[in-house]
Every structure is written in C-alpha cells, then in structure tokens.
C-alpha cells in the first residue's frame, strides 16, 4: 500500500533505491566503453580513485572543486523550489567572475587582502544578482520564460567575456587577463594544499543559509507554495513577482560567488580566461535534479561530482583517456537516476493496482 504522506526517511530510502542501481548501471556502461577501446576498466578505476582521493593534496583539490558547484546548487535549490528553472545560472557564474575581476585586476602587490577579498566577493555577488535580475524581470514584466531568457543571457554573458578578454582587458597574445597580484587571490590555508579558508567559509555559509531558508522561514514556505501553484500562492497573499525577483537574485549572487572562486581560488589559474564558468552552473542544475530538490544531499553529491574531474585528470595523464569521459559519467548518472525514479514510481503504481 502506498501512502500519500511521505516521510523524510521514506525519501532517503527512495534516494538509495534509485541511486545505487543507477550508479551500478553507469559504471558498467563506462566499463564497456573502456573495454571497447582496449583499456583495462579495473586499472582505470584504480587510477581514477587514486587520482581523485589518493593523497591529501588530491582530496583538498576535490573539496575546492566542489565549492563552486555547492554554491550554484544552493542557489538553484531556491529557484527550483519556487518553480523557476534558472538555466541562466551559467551566465550568472560568468558575470560573477567578470565582476570579481574588475577589482582583482587593479589590485597591486602591496594591497591589503583583508579588504580586497571581501570586496571581490561582494562585487561578484552583485554581478551575478544583476544578471539574474534581468532574467527575472524579463519573466515578471515581459512574460519571457526564465529558461529561454536564461539561455539567451548565457550567450550574451559569454560574448561579453570574450569581448573583454580580446579587447580592453587583454594581456599578451592570448584572450586572457594578466595573472592577478597575490593579495587579490584567495590565500592557502597551508602550503602544499589548495585549501582556502575564505572559499570554504562562503560556500558552506551559503549552503547553510539556503538550508535554513527552505526549512524554517516563511519566505522558504512561500517559495515552496509558489513552486506548486503560483496562482493559489498569489491569492493566499504571497507576493509572487517580488519573490521571483528575490529568489533569482539570491541564486545569481551565489552563482556570482562561484564565479569569483573559479577565478581566485588556489586551484584556479589566478586570471580571467575564456570559458571561465566551465559548465559549473549546469553541473549545479544536474546536482539539484539528482537530489530531487532536497537540500540535505546537495553537499555530498557536489563532492561526489567534484571527484570526477580531478580523477579523470589522472586518467588523462596515465592512461591517455580523454577528460570528457568524466562528463559522460556525470551526465549518464543523472539520466540513470531520473530513469530509475520514473521506473520506481511506475512499479509502485502498478503494484498498488494489483
């Protein structure tokens, strides 16, 4: 018998029922791909795991890699809860990176990083939030679906980035800025490891903030109501247009922070490059879809997703496998989980008929 009232333990169980089989299927799939090109899957797996979490330095890299994803996914938790498919998150990351660079590229070697870094973060948040506000206003005032507005704004953001890097901000022959001075970059917690305290702090704080907004605040409940029925929520007194703007801007601000980390963190290059966002916003979308908009699981899944690029880096070097294998893995996993969810609910339905 199925009950319509789902408890949270039920949800956790559901996640495992779908996640584990999906993971297994995807691993078998990857194994088959490797075998077909005469690579040993077992060796690849060993290399992958060693490359991802084989040393303190690697584990630190994984953590730092996970932070921008965590930021994007946290922001997207808000918009997805409100029923807003903020696909423009990728452009908001790019804008955050650009806005952080406005300060970073002017910083001299004798500047005080205690002032510079907060300023960079704040500007990055403003950049991301403004870009998200454009999508939100297009939606509320112009009736443009946030998905289409977001896709268009992603293109524009990319082109603004290319314009800056080939024009006013260009340094040297390549489309990139000069490397920023030390005070502009996020400091390492200890030498030899890429861990950076400010990066960890902003990402974890942002996630905790979102978690509590959704769990305990009136605003979080309003977003949930909007996501289920905007019309009813409006009549129940929720200011829906304002909440669309606010949730999009907050998501944009967190995406902007992610953009700043992608430029300034110790695992970044310390300069603004083309393609700086590198799909981290889309990965955020995948993460939130994977966890079915349940905040609790986001950090773990973000860490899991961060293992992939770090691990495939090692595969690339030691086994001459292309890094895109990592993307195949991530995307196939999300697809498999969504599929497993669909199959599960179908099975439940037919079971309850009998």
């Amino acid at each position: 018998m199925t009950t319509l009232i789902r408890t949270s333990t039920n949800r956790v169980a559901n996640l495992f029922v779908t996640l584990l089989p999906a993971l297994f299927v995807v691993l078998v799939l990857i194994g088959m791909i490797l075998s077909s090109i005469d690579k040993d899957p077992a060796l690849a797996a060993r290399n992958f795991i060693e490359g991802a979490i084989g040393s303190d330095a690697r584990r630190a890299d994984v953590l730092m890699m996970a932070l921008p994803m965590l930021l994007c996914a946290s922001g997207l938790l808000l918009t997805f809860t409100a029923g807003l498919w903020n696909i423009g998150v990728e452009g908001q990351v790019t804008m955050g990176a650009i806005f952080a660079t406005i300060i970073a590229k002017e910083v001299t070697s004798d500047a005080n990083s205690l002032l510079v870094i907060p300023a960079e973060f704040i500007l990055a948040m403003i950049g991301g939030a403004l870009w998200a506000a454009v999508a939100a206003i297009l939606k509320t005032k112009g009736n443009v679906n946030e998905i289409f507005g977001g896709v268009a704004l992603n293109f524009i953001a990319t082109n603004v980035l290319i314009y800056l890097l080939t024009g006013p901000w260009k340094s040297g022959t390549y489309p990139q800025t000069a490397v920023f001075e030390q005070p502009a970059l996020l400091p390492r917690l200890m030498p030899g490891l890429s861990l950076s305290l400010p990066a960890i702090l902003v990402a974890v704080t942002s996630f905790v903030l979102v978690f509590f907004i959704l769990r305990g605040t009136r605003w979080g409940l309003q977003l949930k109501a909007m996501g289920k029925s905007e019309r009813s929520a409006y009549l129940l007194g929720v200011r829906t247009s304002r909440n669309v703007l606010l949730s999009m801007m907050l998501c944009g601000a967190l995406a902007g922070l992610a953009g700043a980390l992608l430029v300034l963190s110790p695992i970044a290059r310390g300069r603004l490059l083309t393609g700086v966002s590198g799909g981290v916003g889309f990965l955020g979308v995948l993460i939130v879809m994977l966890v079915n908009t349940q905040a609790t699981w986001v950090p773990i899944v973000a860490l899991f997703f961060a293992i992939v690029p770090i691990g495939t880096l090692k595969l690339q070097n030691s086994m001459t496998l292309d890094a895109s294998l990592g993307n195949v893995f991530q995307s196939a996993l999300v697809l498999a989980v969504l599929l497993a969810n669909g199959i599960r609910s179908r099975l439940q339905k037919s079971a309850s008929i009998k």
Partner: protein
Amino acid sequence: MRVELEHITKTFGKLRANDDISMTLEGGQIYAILGENGAGKSTLMKILSGYQPADSGRILLDGKEVAFETPADALAYGIGMLHQDPLDVPVLTVLENFALGRREGLLPNRRAARAALADHANRLGFLLNPDAYVDGLTIGERQQLEIVRLLSLGARVLILDEPTTGISAEQKDTLFKSLKRLVADEGLTVILVSHKLEDVEALCSHVYVLRQGKVVGQQAMPCSTDRLVALMFGQSIERTPRPPIERGPLVLSVQNLSIPGRRLVVRNLNLDVHAGEVIGLAGLDGSGQNAFLRACAGLQPPTEGRIVLVGQDVTRCGYHEMVRRGVAYAPAGRLEEGLVAGLTLTEHFALAMPGGAWVNWKAAQQQAEKRIAHYNIRGRPESLIQTLSGGNQQRTLLALLPSDLKLLLMENPTRGLDVESARWVWTQLLDRRAQGTAIIFMSPDLDEIMEYSDRIVVFFGGQATLVDDPAQTSVSQLGQLIGGKAV
C-alpha cells in the same frame, strides 16, 4: 454496458475514503451516487474511470474483470468521466480540444474532426463554436464539449461529477434532455454523482447512497425526498431561521463602475454595501458577476468609475493592498486558485498565519489541529490538501480566511457541497456577518441567493439591477430578471 464494482476499498493515509463498496449498474439506466461531502463519491468514480487505482476490489464490465492504469485505458473500455472542473486545455480551441485523444494517424485530420464535432454536438442539442477558445467558454459549455468528446471516443458509461454546479438553468435543461435521450435511444449507462436532491429526482431511476465511505442504502426512484435525506444524513435536517439584519456603517461604495468581463462589459454599476450586510449576485453564468467580484478584490482593474472602501478610494489598489485593508476573496476553483496542491494543511495555515521571518512549526501544527477541529475538516494536519474531498477543501479555504474582515468576496461559496456542509458554511458566514463583515457572494443557486441575501444584484447582459427587498420578491420574479425581463 453493465458495470459491477466488487468490494472496492481505498485509503488515503488513515482516511478510509471507500470501505468495501459493491454495486451493480445496468445499461440504459441513469444512476445517482448520492452522499454528503467526503462520503467517498468522487474517490469511487475516480477509481472506476482509471484516475486512481483501488487498494483492493474488482471492477467487472459485462461480467469481465478489467484493470485500468490510466483514464485513457478506462475510456478504451468505454468508461468516460466528466469532472467537476472540466479537464480541458484552456489555451486551445474547442476543435483542438475535441481532436485531442482522437485515435487517428500522425497528422490530425481537422476536417474530419470538425465534422465529427458538429455531428455529435447536433445529436445532443449542444451549440458549440469549434473555433472559440476554451478559456472564453462558461463552465456549462466546457462541460458540453467534454461530453461530446467522451462520446465521440466511444464512451458507453458516462460518469458526471456534480454536473449542475456552476451552469445555468437552461444549460441544465439541455444537459438533462440529452442525457435522457442517450440512455433511452443508445442504451448508455449514466452515473450522476451529486448531492442535489432535485437533480437526482429529475433524472435518475436508481439511487445509491454513500456515507463515510460505505454504501448505506439503495433506492429505486421515484421516492420521497425525506427518505433520501434520511438515507444521506441518517436524520432529517431542518432550516434555521436567519437572524435579523443589523446594518452597520458603509463599508464599500461602488460608483459608476465599468469592468470588462469575459464576453461583455459590465457598465455603470452603483452599489453601497454596509457592514453586516449580505449581497447576493445572481445571473446567468458569465453575466459579469465574476468580473465585479474580482474588481472589488483588486484582481481586475475597472476601466471607469470608483471603488471606495471605508472612505478611501481603492480603485487602483492591487489585490495584496486590498487584503491588507481587510478584504478577502475566496475563488470557486479551490485547487486552481485557492489552495496549493502538494502542501499539507499545516503548511497552509503556516502560510496564512501572520508572523516573523521564521515559521513556528509547532504553533502552525497546533493552529492546524485547532482549526481542523473547529471547522470540522475531515483530514489531518499532515494531510496533503488534494487528498481531501471537495467539501473539506472548502472548509479549509474558510478556515484560512483572517478573522477580522471588512469585506468578504466569495464565488459560489457552496459549490459542490451537500446540504449539510452548505448549511454549515453559511453558519460560518453568518457568524462573520454578525461580527460586522460585509459579504458579497455569487451563486448559480437561486434558492441560496434568496435565502441568505439581504439584497440582491441581478446581472444580465452587462446591466446590474438591484433588488432591495428579497422578502417581497418571488423566485420566479428573480428568474425573469436573470433572463433579462423587467419585472
């Protein structure tokens, strides 16, 4: 087609919506499933029409056991259901809605669909413009479209869930005539889910009565109304006399108002409403009552005129500003625009409760328990709102209204409710009236308008006529006004 239901049981959480229900329905007959709200009528019909599976029990069609996974499955077996809120696609035209679900090749054959639509509509005596958009139709017309669509897809069993709520008297006549013809000439089985005794008496040859998820009786028609009422409620009900009016200060003053409606413009409307007054809006479906209510709620800006609330001009105020000033609006489509499907009762009360940035879940839970008890809602704080019956959803909607209101605007306050629930709703509304709330409501039910209104505004063709003293006016006089004849 002969339909047999055997030992159907369905539970929602701890709620037993259907409890071991068995019944046999023969072809060529019109059956009524009668019962008060929450008796399990809609649940049973949703099971029969494939919208949801039963927990246990069997369905037999002409003696053969069947199982449906989807409404399309059920329709393939010949069972079609007409829902209380027609399930059509509002942004498409009548023809496009009709063509949806037709089994044909890859490319829809518009000409054939158009011919089939005209054919079926003529047969039933319905006037449907194939190129009209569905969102511009009245509920009655959308119902006709749905019936035509179901029949064209081969429905041999037609289930109608509260079909006469929200449609005009003429539309009801047409509907009943065509249903009787379908049954007599073509041997269809028609199942009418209703709590309206007059409809049941006018239409049905056999009645099954449900109470709290069980079949408590069946009865061949005709029989006395008292007998049916006794079966439904276990005892006869009597009306309570309404307390006398105490007109308070002026609450709402509407001056020379013009509002664009769905198909016509309401012009030059003047009305003063005092505290403690109940104003009933009568008129055929879509004559402008709705536009007027929405204008008063700030949901639809008038093109001309002024709206004054307690001495302040609020003509240009939006809905949320009106709410802040003590106006509430309760829409007819409960799950579309009143309640949020997917949220629990506790979450609804938390949403409606005033308070700071943080939700006090404990207080919200207590509040939910208190209101569930006070408003006699059959549900639990953690129940999802869509699992409640229509009547209990309406109770929830009332329970969500703030306590000190200046003006309460209601579309069809007792839509889809049985006599008992309707009476209970009005007890609540009259309580509010006694506390000085002015109430404006619209209803297609003339008896309801006559019984509860202190004054009546009749809408016809964009004109509003004020009836000052309902006590001196007969139902037939009112009916003539509604039909556009001056008395």
